[in-house]
């Protein structure tokens, strides 16, 4: 085993340029694929967050007296599935809006009157967080006489989910293509190494070296390349991620943008996959070009 390893490392050194190109290619493939994975896991988290925190906004008809509010609130609260009801006065909503639109606040300044209605924000219990349930509750709230309109993000979220699924599919396809490209690159490298070593391999066979002895170092060599490529790809992604996320966190302090790096299981999985790429590339090259 030590001899195999020694020979594999020697091979990588002897074919330094070729090995570097191979490792970089693998690293780039891994970088692109795992960048996609990073984007998707985070987008997925955000969407799940939205789905979980699905709320219904119920807007009151204008001119309803403030002393009726507790009564309306109670009526909403009585609907099965409602967990919590919060009153948001139109003044409060207006203040929030101004905060969120600091830059464009001149538009709001020019308004003489607050155009926003008073509203209730309704949270649902966990078992009612499903689309049909939300719709049912929303309809019941809407039927209350003092409610003018209800709003919930279902339609919008649904469309977004569809687009997201399409993207995810494209991501898988791309992952597949990069996987094949990386395997091909490794196979090609091993093919060239076999070619430069063909005389040596012939001689090894003549002096009684087994196929295992001859092939072992090629496998180690390509698995080393795969592993290095994988680690470099993940490391570059991590550094880029850190740089970007620290910048983003300074400018926005949104709860929504609580982005996270890939989980250790995930990136270890990617590195394992990258090792497998090395192994497979080698297997294909040996099968094709090292006939006994």
């Amino acid at each position, binding site marked *: 085993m*030590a001899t195999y390893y020694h020979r594999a490392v020697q091979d990588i050194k002897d074919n330094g340029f070729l090995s570097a190109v191979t490792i970089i290619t693998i690293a780039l493939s891994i970088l692109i694929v795992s960048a996609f994975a990073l984007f998707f896991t985070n987008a997925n988290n955000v969407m799940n967050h939205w789905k979980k925190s699905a709320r219904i906004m119920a807007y009151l008809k204008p001119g309803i007296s403030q002393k009726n509010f507790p009564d309306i609130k109670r009526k909403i609260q009585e609907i099965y599935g409602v967990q919590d009801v919060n009153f948001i006065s139109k003044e409060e909503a207006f203040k929030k809006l101004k905060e969120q639109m600091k830059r464009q606040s001149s538009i709001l300044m020019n308004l003489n009157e607050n155009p926003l209605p008073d509203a209730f924000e309704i949270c649902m219990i966990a078992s009612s967080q499903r689309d049909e349930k939300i719709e049912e509750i929303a309809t019941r709230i809407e039927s209350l006489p003092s409610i003018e309109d209800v709003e919930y993000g279902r339609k919008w979220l649904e469309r977004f989910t569809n687009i997201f699924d399409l993207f995810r599919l494209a991501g898988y396809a791309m992952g597949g293509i990069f996987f094949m490209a990386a395997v091909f690159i490794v196979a090609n490298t091993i093919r060239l190494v076999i070619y430069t070593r063909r*005389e*040596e391999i012939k001689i090894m*066979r*003549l*002096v*009684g*070296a087994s196929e295992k002895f001859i092939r072992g170092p090629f496998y180690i060599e390509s698995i080393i390349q795969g592993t290095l490529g994988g680690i470099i790809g993940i490391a570059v992604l991590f550094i880029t991620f850190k740089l970007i996320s620290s910048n983003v966190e300074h400018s926005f302090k949104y709860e929504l943008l609580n982005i996270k790096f890939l989980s250790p299981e995930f990136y270890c999985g990617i590195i394992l996959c990258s090792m497998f790429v090395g192994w497979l590339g080698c297997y294909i090259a040996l099968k094709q070009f090292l006939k006994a």
Partner: protein
Amino acid sequence: MIDGKDKSSIIQMFHVHKYYGSKKALVDISLNVSKNDFLFISGPSGAGKSTLLRLLYLGEPVSEGQVLVDGMNLSRISRKKIPFLRRKFGIIFQDYKLISTKTVFDNVALVLEASGKKRKFIEKKVRSVLRTVGIERRINALPPSLSGGEQQRVAVARAVVGVPRIILADEPTGSLDSDSADIILNLLKGFHTHGGTVIVATHDKELIRKAGGRILYLKQGRLLGPAPI
């Protein structure tokens, strides 16, 4: 001489033919080599001497006939067993077949690495063999930087280092001056004295005369029996 039941025989050929296309390189060869034989296969160039040696280590398959080596029937052994067959031999090739990108040490060590020996043992053994063939000084040299005689000695070292049962030597003194040839011959004799079997293919009559031993004469692919010198 040709006796399949001879217990002390290590190589047997039965009616072996070898064709290259329509060219007949060997025709109906039957022979028996006993353990601890020192056998010369002589004959003019193109007679089929190298071809005969190649058949023994399955460098090539026979076209017809049977070859037995140390109990293995070469037409029956699986691909996986070929390395075991080849480890029974130490082969000195006519063109040396040293790996030009590896040092003298690594070339010789290869045989022991391939049979899974320990690093420490390899280190010791290779040095001692290189000392025996008198090329220890060039241990870190690459073969192309060596003279023909030096390369020949490395080839001999590689052939004996794994303690094979049989040494096959193809024109081992081919391009050497007579002093170098004597060194090689003495090494082969030493191996023989320690119980090894030696088969030398050569057209060098001087070498055969000096060595003494059994001689088979090949001409145009046919075995003519014990040869007149």
